[in-house]
């Protein structure tokens, strides 16, 4: 059985948060779809609440604490990403954005990614399309077509949950397909494969 790693970034602040509940359902569904494809996926969750101070410090100092560095590595080294933010003032939360602000510029290149969000009401449901998707696309991630938005009501009403459940299934299947294909190539580490200086000189032409 092939092994893959799924990183989950949850920007929720409650304990437990709606974002984390949604993230866990998405991660579980993705694991199931990967298992059907003969892929055993390990899931690593990054809870941004625990890194709130470290993220603020990184903005100020320009370097990550050991805990934040580990979280950034978890995401950069993953075969798939599930990114979930609560909606704050018509967009992703500042904490969620900060995590992506301090990621290395190429950390998400070609990374299969599922975006999702939670909010108080369904009025925010397009936040995945006008905020999360452009952000992840800018970072060169490959974002699956189905994004998942869950309003508070979706965690209650039976019929609403059916609708949410089917979206989760579809999004997870799309992510699992990309992850199992495993086409992501991680760029060379310049420290491991330095560019010969003659080439740097020669490039000047």
């Amino acid at each position: 059985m092939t092994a893959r790693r799924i990183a989950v970034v949850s920007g929720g602040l409650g304990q437990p948060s709606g974002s984390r509940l949604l993230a866990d359902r998405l991660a579980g569904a993705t694991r199931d779809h990967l298992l059907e494809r003969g892929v055993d996926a390990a899931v690593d969750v990054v809870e941004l609440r625990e890194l709130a101070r470290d993220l603020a410090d990184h903005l100020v100092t320009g370097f990550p604490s050991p805990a934040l560095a580990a979280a950034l590595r978890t995401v950069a080294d993953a075969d798939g990403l599930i990114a979930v933010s609560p909606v704050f003032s018509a967009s992703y939360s500042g904490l969620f954005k900060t995590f992506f602000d301090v990621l290395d510029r190429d950390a998400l290149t070609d990374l299969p990614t599922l975006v999702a969000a939670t909010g108080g009401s369904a009025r925010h449901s397009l936040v995945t399309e006008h905020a999360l998707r452009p952000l992840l696309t800018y970072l060169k991630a490959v974002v699956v077509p189905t994004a998942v938005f869950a309003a508070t009501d979706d965690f209650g009403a039976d019929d609403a949950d059916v609708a949410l459940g089917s979206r989760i299934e579809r999004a997870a299947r799309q992510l699992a397909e990309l992850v199992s294909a495993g086409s992501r190539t991680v760029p060379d580490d310049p420290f491991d494969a330095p560019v010969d200086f003659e080439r740097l000189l020669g490039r000047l032409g």
Partner: protein
Amino acid sequence: MQFGVFTVGDVTTDPTTGRTPTEAERIKAMVTIAQKAEEVGLDVFATGEHHNPPFVPSSPTTMLGYVAARTERLILSTSTTLITTNDPVKIAEDFAMLQHLADGRVDLMMGRGNTGPVYPWFGKDITKGIELAVENYDLLRRLWREDVVDWKGRFRTPLRGFTSTPRPLDGVPPFVWHGSIRSPEIAEQAAYYGDGFFANHIFWPREHFRRLIELYRTRFEHYGHGSADQAVVGLGGQVFLHRNSQEAVRRFRPYFDNAPVYGHGPSLEDFTEMTPLTVGSPAEAIDKTMGFREYFGDYQRQLFLVDHAGLPLKTVLEQLDLLGEEVVPTLRKEFDALRPAHVPEAPTHRSLVAAARAAGEARAAIEVPVAEPDAVVAR
């Protein structure tokens, strides 16, 4: 082993008094700090180069020329000289002039700068930072080594039959360090030419710098300048000292908490844990600095930052007394005792002149027929 101080030249309000020094006060304070560095037995004074407030040192060779006249022994250096936005012709001229005035007590550190708008202010494209550093430095080397230069490149107007004056003192250009906090290309550049590599690791965790320095050392050997442990490495450091460790923390905390570079972020305790910053007793500073050697290998130059974040001159001078009397003598002894014989000291003008003469004699010995050995001796 060389020990010294490097200054950013920031004009910062003292957070404990609310007083901001004038530019004149800050500039004169930098000179006083340099003189004090020599007085307490340090080897190097290096100034930054900046072109925007709140920094004053826009014209390093002017300042260093003045310091040269007021000192006898101190090596005058930079941290850094902007190889990206300065004209390499002017760097060649300015530093050769300084060499003559300072009787050779000069070296310099190349850097790309950390203030984006400096590029457009000087008519350069920031996205070409590495290419500028590569082309400009290659030209700078030629200007110092070839009496007449014909040159054409991408970033400055061509040169035909150009001679940079004055020629380097004794025909030997100043030793060059390359400073980088991020770019493997700069470590590669330093290694390619067999120049020094300076890792100013004062604001960042050491793991990152170990990779940069290891890359430099490996490539230094690759390019045939010696073994990896003979590569010429310099490190930054940052100390605030008091004989009583807790008193050091109490006095430095307001400066740390409000420091322009890292203030309002991590706690002093976390930052001390993660970076080379030492706030404590001379013994603690000695321990931490000896730790750099264990982590990065034997190295040649240690520069400390002691005068930023609004610390008043009086405090800085007290810091230099402690550094010179209680930290550096011990470090010097320990480093010298631990360094293997085959690991060199940092080059100085005197050692470079000696090396050039030796190389000249070696060449002459090959060229001169065996029948005339006196000719070799006569040189």
